[in-house]
C-alpha cells in the first residue's frame, strides 16, 4: 500500500512443529522478511485470543499463528482448538472493524522450513497491501509520540 510501510507482525509458533520449521528455514538460509517477530508457545492450543487482541491493540498490523498439521499435534488434538479459536476470533474482529485477513493460521511441520518461509513472506505482502492497522488506543498513541520526539531530538544542530 504505502511506500516504505514495514508492518509490525507477531507470529505465535508452536514448539514442536512450526518453531522447528522456522529454525530449519534459518539454518537452511532460506530468506524471509524480518517483520514477523516469533513468540514460541509449547502448542498452538496454548494460543489464547487474548494474545492476538493484545498484539493488535498494542501496535501489530498482523498476527500469524502456526501449528502442527491437523492430526499431527504433539499433544494430540489441541491444534483443532487453535483452529476453532482463530475462526471465532476472526468473526469477532470483523465486527470490530479489523480485517479478518490480518490474523492467519498456518500449519507447518518441523520439516517444512521452506513452506513456512513462503507463508511468512506471503503474509507480510498481504499485510503490506492492507496497510497499517494503527489501532487507536492511548498506549500506542503515546508510544508513537515518544518515538517521534526521539527522532526529532536526534537531529544534530
Amino acid at each position, binding site marked *: 500500500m504505502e511506500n516504505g510501510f514495514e508492518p509490525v507482525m507477531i507470529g505465535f509458533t508452536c514448539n514442536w512443529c512450526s518453531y522447528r520449521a522456522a529454525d530449519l528455514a534459518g539454518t537452511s538460509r532460506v530468506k524471509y522478511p524480518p517483520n514477523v517477530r516469533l513468540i514460541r508457545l509449547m502448542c498452538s492450543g496454548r494460543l489464547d485470543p487474548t494474545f492476538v*487482541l493484545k498484539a493488535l491493540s498494542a501496535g501489530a498490523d498482523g498476527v500469524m499463528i502456526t501449528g502442527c498439521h491437523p492430526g499431527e499435534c504433539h499433544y494430540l488434538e489441541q491444534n483443532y482448538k487453535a483452529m476453532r479459536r482463530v475462526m471465532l476470533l476472526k468473526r469477532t*474482529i470483523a465486527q470490530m472493524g479489523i480485517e479478518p485477513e490480518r490474523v492467519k493460521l498456518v500449519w507447518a511441520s518441523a520439516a517444512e522450513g521452506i513452506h513456512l518461509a513462503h507463508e511468512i513472506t506471503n503474509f507480510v505482502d498481504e499485510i503490506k497491501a492492507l496497510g497499517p492497522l494503527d489501532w487507536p488506543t492511548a498506549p500506542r498513541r503515546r508510544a508513537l509520540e515518544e518515538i517521534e520526539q526521539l527522532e526529532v531530538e536526534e537531529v544534530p544542530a
Partner: protein
Amino acid sequence: MTENGKPKFAMYWAASCGGCEIAVLNIHEAILDVDANFEIVFWPVAMDAKYKDVEAMEDGEIFLTLFNGGIRNAENEHLAHLMRQKSQLLIAFGSCATEGCIPGLANLSTSEQIFETVYQGPSTENDDSVRPQYMTQMPEGIIEIPIFCPTLRTLQDVVDVDYYIPGCPPESHQIAAVIGLVISVLNGEAELPPKGSTIGVGDSTVCDECPRERDVKRIKQFTRIQELEQIDPDLCLLEQGILCMGPATASGCDSRCPIAGAPCIGCYGPPVGVLDQGARMMTALASVIDSRDPEEIETILDGIVDPAGSFYKFSMAHSLLKAARPSENGR
C-alpha cells in the same frame, strides 16, 4: 467528619440506568445501617444536594463515594474528577463504571449513523435536520448541554480508582457485605483490602456457582433460546446449545440467571485476573465445539449470530480493543 462524627458518604450516577441505586435500596433493612453509620451528603436519586454543594466541600471531605455509570459526556468526566477530588475512597460501582456495561456497545457504531438513527428516526419529524448543539443562543442567554465524547469510557480511564465492585447491578447481598466491611473498618475491626482490588465478587466463574448438572461439553449446534422445544431445568445451558457466558464471567451473583432458565450474559465482567472477557469466552467455546472439520465448524459458528455483542455485551469499553474502528461504508 460531620459534627455528629459520622463519616460522609456519597453515591453518584454518570451515564447510568439507576439500577445500581435500586440495588443499594434493595439491601432493605441494611439501609438503616448506612444511615446509622454515615452522613449521606450527595445522592441525586434520593436527596437534594446539588453540584455546587459538592464543589464547596473540602478535598477528601467525603469518606466514601460509590460512583456508578460510564463516562459518556463532559459532565460525566467533570463529575468523575470532582468526586475523586472530594473523596478519600472512590469506588467504581457496577458494570458501567468498572467496564462500560451495555452502553459500551455504542463503541461499535459510527457517528454518522448515530446522528441519522436518532434525529431522523422513524417517528421523528425533523425536516430541517436539527441536531443538538452544545451551546445554543436563546433570546435570554446561552444555554449549554455537555459535549458528547467520541467513545464511552470507564471510570478508571479518567481518574484513579480505589476499588471496583462489578455487576449489573451488583447483587444486593454483595453490596450489603461491602457496606458491612466498610463499617467494620471504621470500627477498627477489619482492614481494607489492597487498593485496586475488585470486591463484592467471587474468586471463580459463574459455572462454579451454578447448580445445573454439567457433563462433558460437546457442542454440535448453537440454538437460540426461543427455538428450544423445552429448556431442560437441570442441565447446563451451554450443553443444551445456548450461548451462556458463565465460563468467562466472574462469580458472586449466585448464578441467578441460569437458575431461572436464562443464559448468563456476563454482567459481572471477566473473572478476576482476566484481561479480556470476550477472548476468554472465545477460548472456552472453541474448546468445546465438537468438530474438526473447518466447513462444519463454520456452520456451527454461524449459530452465534452476534459474536462481538454476545462476548462483549458488558465489557466492550474495557476490552483490549475497546471500540470498533469505523469502517468506510459504516455499519
